[in-house]
C-alpha cells in the first residue's frame, strides 16, 4: 500500500479543495493579505531554488541536494510562530528557512561549503544552521532533533518565557526510538512543543505502510497524552490553521500537539536517489494535481490577490538573485585550512594545536571534490 490520496480520509483537516477553492462549510483562517502574499513569495523562491540547485547537481557543479517539491505548504507551519520561537528542522523544509529570513546567499554558501558558509564548511549540503533565526543545526541521523526540541521547550517553560518549539520530521522517523522518547517526555512535561510529522509517503524507498500498523501517524499521539491532528499538508490554509491552534495551545501552557501533515514526495529522496526503481511512476501524477503551490495560487486568484505579472516578476527576480548568488559563491574560497580545528571546543587543547601545526606544515593537496 502506498500513501492514500488526501480526499479519501475523513479525519483529515482541509480548508481548500484540490483546485484551491474553500470547501463548503470550511472554516477559512483569517490570514492577513500581506502574510499570504509573503507565503506565496517564499513558496515560489523555494520551488525555484530547488529546481535550480538540482540542475546544478545534475551538471556536476554541486555535490548533493534534496528537493522539497510538492511538500512546500507543510514548511509554513512555522509561519504563525513568533520570531522568538524555536524551530528544530529536518532536512526538507527549505521554505521555513527562507520564511525566517535565511538569505539566498547564505543558503547557497552553505551548499558549497565556502568561506562564508554559516556553518563554515563543516557539513554537507542542506545541513543549515542559523542561531540568529532560532533555527537549530540540522543533523542527518533522523529523529535526534525531537527530544532536543522538547528540551528547549522545557527550558523556555522553566525560564518563565512563553516561547514555543516546533520540530519537523518525516513519517519514517516516527519509527525511531527518538520519536517515542521525545513525544513521551513532551507529554509528561506538558512541554510547549509542536511536532510536525511530514508524511510524504516515502522514506527513501520504503512506503509509509512499512513504518507503522497504526491507523495514522497522528493516531500515535494518544499514547503520549496529547492531541494528534491530521492535516492536508498540501493545503496551506489548513496547515496554517492547525499550526496556529497547536502553537496557541502550547503557548497557553496546555502542552504539546502532534500534527501529521499528509503530503507526497513527488521526486527522489535526494540527488542520489532514483524512485523509478521502487515505485509506480504514475503515483506522483495523482499528487501533482494536489500541488500546494498551485492550490495557493488558485486561492489567491479567488481572493483577487494574484496576477500573472506578479508571479512572472517573482520568477525573474529570484532566478536573477540565485544567479547572482552563485556567481558570488564562485568567487569565494573554501574555508581557511586552520579553521578545521576551530569550534571542536571553545579553545583547542594541545592535541588540536599540535595537529593544526602539523597540517599547516604539509604540502597542499588538490581537493578532489572541488566543484566550480
Amino acid at each position, binding site marked *: 500500500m502506498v500513501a492514500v490520496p488526501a480526499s479519501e480520509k475523513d479525519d483529515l483537516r482541509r480548508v481548500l479543495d484540490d483546485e484551491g477553492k474553500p470547501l463548503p462549510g470550511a472554516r477559512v483562517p483569517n490570514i492577513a493579505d500581506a502574510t499570504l502574499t509573503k507565503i506565496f513569495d517564499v513558496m515560489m523562491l523555494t520551488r525555484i531554488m530547488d529546481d535550480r540547485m538540482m540542475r546544478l547537481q545534475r551538471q556536476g557543479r554541486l555535490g548533493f541536494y534534496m528537493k522539497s517539491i510538492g511538500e512546500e505548504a507543510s514548511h509554513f507551519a512555522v509561519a504563525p510562530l513568533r520570531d522568538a520561537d*524555536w524551530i*528544530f528542522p529536518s532536512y526538507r523544509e527549505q521554505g521555513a528557512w527562507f520564511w525566517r529570513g535565511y538569505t539566498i546567499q547564505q543558503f547557497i554558501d552553505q551548499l558549497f561549503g565556502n568561506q562564508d*558558509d*554559516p*556553518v*563554515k564548511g*563543516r*557539513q554537507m549540503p542542506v*545541513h543549515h*544552521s*542559523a*542561531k540568529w533565526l532560532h533555527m*537549530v*543545526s540540522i*543533523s542527518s*541521523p533522523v529523529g*535526534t532533533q*525531537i*527530544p*532536543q*526540541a*522538547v*528540551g*528547549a*521547550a*522545557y*527550558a*523556555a517553560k*522553566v*525560564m518563565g518565557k512563553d516561547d514555543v*518549539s516546533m520540530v519537523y520530521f518525516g513519517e519514517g522517523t516516527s519509527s525511531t*526510538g*527518538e520519536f517515542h*522518547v*521525545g513525544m*513521551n*517526555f513532551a507529554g*509528561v512535561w506538558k512541554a510547549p512543543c509542536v511536532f510536525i510529522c511530514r508524511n510524504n509517503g516515502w522514506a527513501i524507498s520504503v512506503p509509509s505502510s512499512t513504518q507503522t500498523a497504526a491507523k495514522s501517524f497522528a493516531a500515535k499521539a494518544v499514547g503520549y497524552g496529547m492531541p494528534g491532528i491530521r492535516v492536508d499538508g498540501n493545503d496551506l490554509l489548513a496547515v496554517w490553521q492547525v499550526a496556529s491552534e497547536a502553537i496557541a495551545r502550547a503557548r497557553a501552557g496546555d502542552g504539546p500537539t502532534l500534527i501529521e501533515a499528509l503530503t507526497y514526495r513527488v521526486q527522489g529522496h535526494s540527488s542520489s536517489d532514483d524512485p523509478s526503481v521502487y515505485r509506480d511512476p504514475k503515483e506522483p501524477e495523482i499528487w501533482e494535481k494536489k500541488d500546494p503551490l498551485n492550490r495557493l495560487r488558485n486561492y489567491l486568484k479567488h481572493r483577487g490577490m494574484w496576477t500573472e505579472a506578479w508571479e512572472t516578476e517573482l520568477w525573474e527576480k529570484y532566478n536573477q538573485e540565485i544567479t547572482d548568488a552563485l556567481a558570488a559563491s564562485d568567487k569565494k574560497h573554501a574555508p581557511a585550512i586552520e579553521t578545521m580545528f*576551530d*569550534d*571542536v*571546543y*571553545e579553545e583547542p*587543547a*594541545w*592535541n588540536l594545536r599540535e595537529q593544526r601545526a602539523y597540517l599547516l606544515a604539509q604540502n597542499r593537496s588538490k581537493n578532489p571534490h572541488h566543484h566550480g
Partner: protein
Amino acid sequence: MPTMNIIEAVRNALQTQMRADARVVILGEDVGKFGGVFRATSGLYDEFGSDRVIDTPLAESGIIGTAIGMALYGLRPVPEIQFSDFIYPAFDQIVNELAKFRYRSGGQYPCPVVIRTPVGGGIRGGHYHSQSPEALFIHTPGLKVVAPSNPYDAKGLLLSCMRQNDPVLFMEPKRIYRASKGDVPEGEYTIEIGKASIVREGTQVTLLAWSGMVSIAEDAAKQAEQAGISVEVIDLRTLMPFDIDTLIASTQKTGRVVIVHEAPRTCGFGAELIAAIQERAMEYLEAPIMRVTGFDTPFPYSLEHEYLPNADRVLGAIRQTLEW
C-alpha cells in the same frame, strides 16, 4: 575543613553551583525526590524544586536529548546517567549531537552539558553495573572526559566543568564513592580541566592511573617502597584533553612507565597513552611501557575480583619494567 566522601563532594559541588547559577538544572532517573540511587543529588530537590531537579521518564536518550535542547536554549543541564553501563541508548545523542553541535553549526551552538555517571566495578554489579567505557568517549571529538579519584578533586573538577562551555562526560568511581574520604573546602574552588596530579613523587617508575585505579596504584607504590623501589604515581584526572606535559616530564625523570586501567586492554586508553609517550620521549625510555588492565572479556560477575587490576599485579609490572 569538613571531611567528605566522593558522593558528598559531588552533591556539594552541585549545590554550590545551583545556588550560584539559576541556569543549572539536574535531570535523570530517580535524581529528584529520591536523590539518586547513590544519593548524589539528595536534598537538592527539596532546596531547588522539581523544575530544576527533574525526575525524567526512564530513557537515557531522552535524558541526554532533552538536556541538549535545554542547553541550546540557555540552561546549563547536568544530567545523570544512573550507571555508565546504561549510557549506550544515549550514545548517538552524545557522540553525534552533543559533542558535535558547536562544530557542525560553525560555532553558533555551544552545548554546555555535563553528564555525570558512575563507572567501574568492584560492587558486585556484574556486566551491567561495572563497566569503564571511557575510551569510547575519549575517541569522540568535541567531548571532554573527566575522571576524578577523590572527594577534593571531584568537587573542584565538577565545579570547573559546570563553569565552562564544552560538553563533558564526568565519570565518578562508584566503588569508592563512600570509601574515599578527605578534606573538602565548603566554599568555592576549582581544579583546572586538563591537569594531572602527581599524588606521590618517585624516581624509578611512573605509574599512570585514574578513577578507581588511583588507590590501587598508590597501594602498589607503597609496597614497592618497602622493597626499595621509588615509584611516582600520577592521577590523570582529565582523560581528554590529558596532561601530556606532566606525563612526559615524569617519563623523562623515571624512564619507566606502567599504566593501570580497569577497562578492557585492547584499544583501551592505555594504548593511546603509550603511543603519545613513546612519540615524545623514546630516548628516555629504559623499558617498554607496561599495562595492567581489565581483560578483553565482558565484565564478569562471580570472578570480578580476578578481573580487576590489583596492587600485586601492578607491583609485578613495576618489577618487570625494572628487570627488562
